[in-house]
């Protein structure tokens, strides 16, 4: 008998209020309710979290690493987007 597998879920945890949810790993569960419970039991055993998100792994669309240059390279030259590009006299103080 071939057993049907439980779907894979990705787990995100907010460690403190004010922080964003951060990807911590994955797990298997039959549905969202169980995925939340399993995430709690697996990834928050040492008080790591205040809030948990679970997302079916197959619901995530990822960018293609092969397109990394096309997608992310063009931004490197746009240094005028960064504050250090502009000169402000020291006497003016912090801006």
């Amino acid at each position, binding site marked *: 008998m071939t057993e049907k597998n439980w779907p894979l879920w990705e787990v995100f945890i907010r460690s403190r209020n004010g922080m964003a949810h951060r990807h911590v790993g994955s797990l298997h569960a039959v549905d969202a309710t169980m995925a939340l419970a399993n995430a709690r039991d697996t990834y928050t*055993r040492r008080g790591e979290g205040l809030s948990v998100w679970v997302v079916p792994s197959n619901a995530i669309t990822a960018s293609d690493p092969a397109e990394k240059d096309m997608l992310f390279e063009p931004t490197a030259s746009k240094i005028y987007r960064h504050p250090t590009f502009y000169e402000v006299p020291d006497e003016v103080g912090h801006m």
Partner: protein
Amino acid sequence: MYTQALNVKDEGPALVDAERDAAFQARIDRDEKIEPNDWMPEKYRRTLVRQISQHAHSEIVGMLPEGNWITRAPSLKRKAALLAKVQDEGGHGLYLYSAAETLGTSREELNDQLLTGKAKYSSIFNYPTLTWADIGMVGWLVDGAAIMNQIPLCRTSYGPYARAMIRICKEESFHQRQGYEIVMTLARGNADQKAMAQDALNRWWWPALMMFGPPDAESLHTDQNMAWRIKRFSNDDLRQKFVDATVPQGHHIGLEFPDKDLKFNEATGHWEFGAIDWSEFKRVLAGEGPCNRQRLAQRNKAHDEGAWVREAALAHAEKRAARRMMQAAE
């Protein structure tokens, strides 16, 4: 040890793409991390799946010898700590299976390899835990040896594996201390307890040294893994590091190591130790250790007896989803 998989020769076909291989190696040399969707040589992928899954299997099978003693732990404090520790091993197995799954092999496939005896796990877990002192030894020596290997793995080249190892090392930090404290309490206890500790050390010391795998001279397959930065130190280097760290800890609590050749070399600053019986190591790896059959049988039993539960949970989730669809359609 947990990286014994790296001492196995990769027999699979090596599809060589010289140009991409070189670019890949250049990334590794720059200490860049490799992430799941990145291109990687097939052999790198296979080696990692084998290494990570063997590591995961070791955590899971490793729950059995220690789990043996949870119901017999001699105090409530020890009982809680041991249950938490063995639970951690399960968690570590889970993190590692997750890392392996990012390489495109499902946990079920990996588990199947374990249950059919195709996949290996650390040789150490084929030894029995006969007394309470063994629980101390597993923590002190086995987890101590594991940490020697696991800390460098936090910087291994494959991102998901390195991240899992960081989490594992953080959680493991109490395991070895827990074990040493158990042994120390026995060594400072009554005559029966001291004898129990010494007997356990006598039985666990050599198998613990074997955890690091065969001597470098015989371990011909590590060069590629070193180049790929999957592995970062040689077996012998790690073994020596372990001996240097552990021997003074044992002497401190009045235990004797079962090695008449053990002596400190003032010139090198290292503890020299006697010859390891590699024929025993080979026997255990070949499935003829004291508990190989029992460990696999226990894993298979748990898996088989859990089949109806896993099926039922899926069936219920499907029913629930169908009902929700019906309601939405109304």
